[in-house]
């Protein structure tokens, strides 16, 4: 940045005593800051007509974002270093201003979120979150609550203790409640080892949700259409499923092979597992490692109609567009890859018959 001729330090009067001098310098600095922020405000007002308007260009968004981020950070740094009482008097309003700037930065992200590449979006969100945290920490550090606030707090604390106590008791009853619902099991295969498990749904009207849980070394074939599929704790299984109209939710699987067609596929805590997918939206993984993907290759009698009825007859190519929620960078996530063609299995034909 260029030297500012109105730099307050340059014009502070050297003939004054050090204390007064310091005070004066601080005051001038404040005035200059105020001036700067007014200029900034009017600038932003000028561009206000398009401030909430998306740029539709990642580059101009990023420029604007990093500029705003920098100025917020500078302001936070300045607040942190404030030591003289006079500037301290302004700390509260200064920190509030920072909070407003952060909110504005957030709006900027929001307005542009629909076209931003996912990693830019996520890192922007992260930055905003961090700035907020810094601002909040600074506020509680630099502006300790007034004495009378403690009284309030203590009173409140008592109250919340009471609430919490009843909360615990009540949540126990909630747990019992949930257990009783869980025993009213939804259709599914559970707690099996080394079995071939086959289920055939007639038509899409009939198929509700279906659950596969706690299965070891099983082969599972589900034909017909489903509304939703839940998969939980599978190890060393091969799973072939017809079209799912809603979503497939997968948690904790290891050493498995899945063949799934669905509108949404959400994979959590998967290890060393291959997924043959057809999916309308982007499949996502979270907390997973050594996941490989390939296109859907399932056949059973009547699958064409089931796929059509669930609007999954078209190959969108989305099987390869995996989003890793844990991976914040532009580079390919190390947690998943495309299964090399030479290692893929061939089209799998399944039927009602056991193996």
């Amino acid at each position, binding site marked *: 940045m260029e030297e500012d001729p109105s730099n307050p330090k340059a014009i502070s009067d050297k003939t004054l005593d050090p204390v007064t001098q310091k005070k004066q310098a601080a005051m001038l600095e404040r005035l200059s800051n105020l001036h700067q922020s007014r200029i900034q405000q009017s600038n932003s007002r000028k561009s206000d007509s398009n401030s909430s308007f998306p740029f539709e260009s990642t580059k101009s968004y990023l420029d604007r974002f990093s500029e705003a981020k920098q100025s917020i950070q500078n302001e936070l740094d300045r607040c942190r270093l404030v030591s003289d009482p006079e500037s301290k008097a302004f700390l509260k309003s200064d920190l509030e201003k920072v909070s407003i700037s952060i909110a504005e930065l957030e709006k900027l992200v929001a307005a542009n*979120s629909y076209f931003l590449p*996912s990693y830019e979006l996520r890192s922007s969100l992260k930055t905003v979150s961090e700035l907020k945290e810094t601002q909040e920490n600074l506020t509680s550090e630099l502006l300790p609550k007034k004495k009378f606030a403690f009284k309030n707090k203590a009173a409140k604390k008592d109250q919340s203790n009471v609430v919490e106590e009843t909360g615990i008791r009540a949540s126990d009853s*909630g747990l019992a409640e949930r257990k009783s619902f869980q025993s009213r099991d939804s259709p599914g295969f559970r707690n099996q080892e080394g079995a071939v498990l086959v289920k055939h749904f007639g038509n899409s009207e009939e198929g509700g949700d279906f659950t596969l849980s706690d299965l070891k070394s099983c082969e599972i074939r589900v034909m017909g259409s489903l*509304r939703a599929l839940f998969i939980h704790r599978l190890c060393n299984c091969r799973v072939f499923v017809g079209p799912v109209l809603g979503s497939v939710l997968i948690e904790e699987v290891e050493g498995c092979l899945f063949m799934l067609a669905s509108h*949404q596929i959400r994979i959590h805590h998967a290890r060393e597992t291959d997924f043959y997918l057809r999916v309308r939206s982007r499949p996502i993984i979270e907390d997973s490692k050594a996941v490989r993907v390939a296109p859907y290759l399932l056949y059973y009698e009547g699958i064409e109609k089931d796929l059509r009825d669930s609007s999954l007859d078209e190959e969108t190519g989305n099987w390869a567009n995996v989003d890793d929620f844990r991976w914040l960078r532009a580079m390919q996530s190390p947690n998943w890859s495309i299964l090399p063609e030479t290692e893929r299995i061939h089209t799998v034909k399944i039927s009602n018959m056991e193996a």
Partner: protein
Amino acid sequence: MGLLSIIRKIKKKEKEMRILMVGLDNSGKTTIVLRINGEDTSVISPTLGFNIKTIIYNKYMLNIWDVGGQRTIRSYWRNYFEQTDGLVWVVDSSDVRRLDDCKMELDNLLKEERLSGASLLILANKQDIQGALTPAEIAKVLNLDAMDKTRHWNIVGCSAYTGEGLLEGFDWLVQDIASRIYVLD
């Protein structure tokens, strides 16, 4: 008419309401928002960050913030608490296994001071799925009766697929917020 209500009236002249939609991943938040806005719901990806929709609802302008519920991004929810008039907590009524998770996250949210004034609508979504728990059952598991007495809340069963229940839910929410904020109406 009190001075306070005049001030409020002026402040909220545009009749804006800020609504925050949260809930576990896969509960159907984005589908619900698109459905009430009359948009295509055939291709929806899990939400990586958040979406904002401005919807004119009756004579109010709803700013709906739909924030992703995947575990990785739940820590960002707190970024959206400020100035929230209405909180919509969406539950997948067919996902019985994760109701504990769901209860824990909701309890955490309700401890948040910045949300203490917000009206709370709980949508027991996916009622179209056979075997989905009813709103009454969900209310029991989430132990809603034990909620702070000062909280305005309601639970409504709905389906983002059929659209059933959505208007009922949002009608209640908007009316409840309006009766708190727009004292004059």
